[in-house]
């Protein structure tokens, strides 16, 4: 397991919003929910690769902007009956900042 890397201040992500992080492992979407939980997913929808970071966040789910797959932020899995899974990244909010761990 690699180290925690600081991404940005928590305030730099809107509640129910997201930011894109460019990394050596591709683009990662960092989401912040209405109650300030943070999650990280590979920014590629399991359907046709849509940028999940651009979707609408509701509860602990994001709806892909291209064709409306709903993806669980916790597990990256598409909500049934859709199928597929986006890769997860460990993310935490601590001391007012957001941290990411690359796999």
């Amino acid at each position: 397991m690699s180290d925690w890397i600081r991404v940005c201040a928590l305030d730099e992500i809107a509640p129910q919003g997201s930011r894109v992080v460019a990394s050596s492992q591709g683009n990662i979407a960092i989401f912040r929910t209405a109650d300030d939980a943070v999650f990280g997913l590979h920014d590629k929808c399991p359907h046709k690769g849509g940028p999940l970071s651009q979707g609408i966040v509701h509860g602990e789910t994001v709806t892909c902007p291209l064709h409306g797959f709903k993806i669980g932020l916790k597990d990256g899995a598409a909500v049934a009956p859709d199928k597929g899974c986006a890769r997860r990244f460990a993310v935490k909010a601590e001391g007012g900042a957001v941290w990411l761990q690359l796999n």
Partner: protein
Amino acid sequence: MNARIEAAPLDEHHSGRRPKLVVVGNGMAGIRAVEELLKLAPDLYDITVFGAEPHPNYNRILLSPVLAGEMTIQDIVLNPLQWYADNNIGLYTGKTVTKIDRTARKVIASDGTEEEYDRLLLATGSTPFILPIPGNDLPGVISYRDIKDTDEMIAAAATHKHAVVIGGGLLGLEAANGLKLRGMDVTVVHLMPWLMERQLDKAAADMLKTSLEARGLKFLLEKQTEALIQGESGRVCALRFKDGLEIPADLVVMAAGIRPNTALAESARLYCNRGIVVNDTMQTYDPRIYAVGECVAHRGIAYGLVAPLFEQAKVCANHLANFGIARYSGSVLSTKLKVTGIDLFSAGNFMGGEGTDEIVLNDPAGGVYKKLVLKNDTLVGAVLYGDTADGAWYFQLVKDGQNIHEIRDHLMFGQNHVGDVGHAGKTHAATLPDDAQVCGCNGVCKGDIVKAIKANGLFTLDEVRKHTKASSSCGSCTGLVEQILASTVGGAYTPADTKDKPMCGCTDHSHGVVRQAIRDQHLLTIPETMQYMEWKTPSGCASCRPALNYYLISTWPGEARDDPQSRFINERAHANIQKDGTYSVVPRMWGGLTTPSELRAIADVADKYQVPTVKMTGGARVDLLGIRKEDLPKVWADLGRAGMVSGHAYGKSIRTVKTCVGAEHCRFGTQKSMAMGVKLERMLFGMWSPHKVKLAVSGCPRNCAEAGIKDVGVIGVDAGYELYVAGNGGIKTEVAQFLCKVKTDEEVKEYSGAFLQLYREEGYYLERTCHYVARVGLDHVKAAVVDDPVKRKELYERLLFALQDYEDPWQQAVQQPAVRREYQVIRLEEVTT
């Protein structure tokens, strides 16, 4: 099987023990009620189900395709045993409940098994009616109700030749068709003068008979059976009629009607009258006992199709879950025969009678018959044969009781008589081969849809959309998908309620109710609205949040704050997202006019940011496609320096005002259409609306700006302007309707502004003006915008108020760091090891 461990018998009010719900009848209605209950209150009850059949819950209506050899029993199971286990439901299969002890509150099965209940749900279905004639108990004489009957029929078809089906209704014909397909020689015997007399009028029934005869079925109408005759083997061998005629029969299927299963309820002295009598909350005369399904009589009616039973199940679950708000007020029925290749549909009161009018289209040679029954400007019934494309639409009109005064003269030609695109003009589901593409957006074929419906036990359009994606994008194939659904599940299909359809899964309230509450209660934020309206999800979904955001900012301009996180990405990023995640940029060109310096600035941007595609849009302006999100603010800064602002090509907002050259240059022009167009577009800049809004201004009736298919179309004539509204050039072409004639440019602004403000205040989210006007009626619009000058002025002023001080969103993103953040990618400082 599955014996349960008894919990100590406490009163339900005691803590620590969940109340017990016992369900008698493991069929379609009972289990649907349990499913609905689990959705509302998953942990409220300890649930136990008794089923007399030795199977888990299956899709009874698909026994017909099983008999026809199109499916197997495994295919039609709706809830496998695992489902019961997963939901902690105790299941007794093969166990018939024979007694209800209402004092001790327990049920007792024939083998002595007992279960106590706090709530009891009776869903015992019905039993086939067996004609009281000699020989009705001979081997080879059966009814058609369950898996056992179906297996017997399949076995008989393999070894015997002559089948007789008594009863020419829905069930009888499906049985006859199946047996014929399995190689038997089949005769249908019917007491009445025509087939399916409860669903069809004579004309349609005669056409049906002719086409079934062409498939090799034989019919004996107006024949009364007197006796069944035993052969030497002991099995039935013939059937004799009252008139003495005898025909051979090695298999006799009785499909002469059903009787509600009320014996159990009656033995417990529950009031029954042609079914177990229930009130609008599905409660019997004993308040602890509910009943749903074919065993029930509600307001004197016992239903024999799945759709109403599902409605009952939903209401019942609502009360079992202690919500206590739902009511069942009866159902309008529709029917579809599930015989592959035959298109037949009926709904409502199709026989007409006192006080009704009929519109009939009869083309026996072409195999098409349609009858519409009208009463006081509403459609009350329909029969369609041969072309059922509009069945769902008619059914919807019947159910909604919608006023059809304005569409009466073209009602018969259906909803899709003009303009539908996207599936090669195909509108008849039954004749489509399995590999025909139905949904052009998502590439879904008919076969995929049928397979999904059968494999997953789907009953509604929403479910089909979820599972297959068919008709979930542009929606132009909705009618076709509805037809496929209807022909696969028969009368089990009901179109969604358009009138009080809930906004989405997050709420039971409709768009109309929510809009009204926002206005009446002066609600200003999304969380406040969700709390007041008792939303079921903590923060809504991608479908309700954008709608709520729009309702709030349009109802309370200047007070409600826009919530970017509740906007679809295009509106949040002020550009159109592309399939590869890049964006497109369309600067506004007022009225379609541009200048050399604007064009130069566009060319420079295209060079500087290596824009891969530059194209003219269908809206008469330039599109720069394939720009990286990070570059958007830079592109906008450059365009802004040349005086250009957002074209809102991405928004549910004002899009374009197309113009022709008009009196400024054209030899025919009567009005200065370019100038008028620019005035309108400047006036409407920044207008958010339920859906996008497009205008056009033409300088004369040659109409080179195509004003006839715009939300607002303006046509210059010698004495002024003609105004047209509610046109649409998209998925379904709709010709705009004449609103009124006006004289001056100022009046064009006032009238079109007032119309658009009315639409902004009353339209439901994602409703284009054509849908809005179809819903409220053009008369309603005219009353507010044309006939009432005071109202018109008020509307117009409210529009101008809402639009004042609107700033170009592109420049905001350029200038405000907090807004700009949306476009920035974070680059990690990774330590490479």
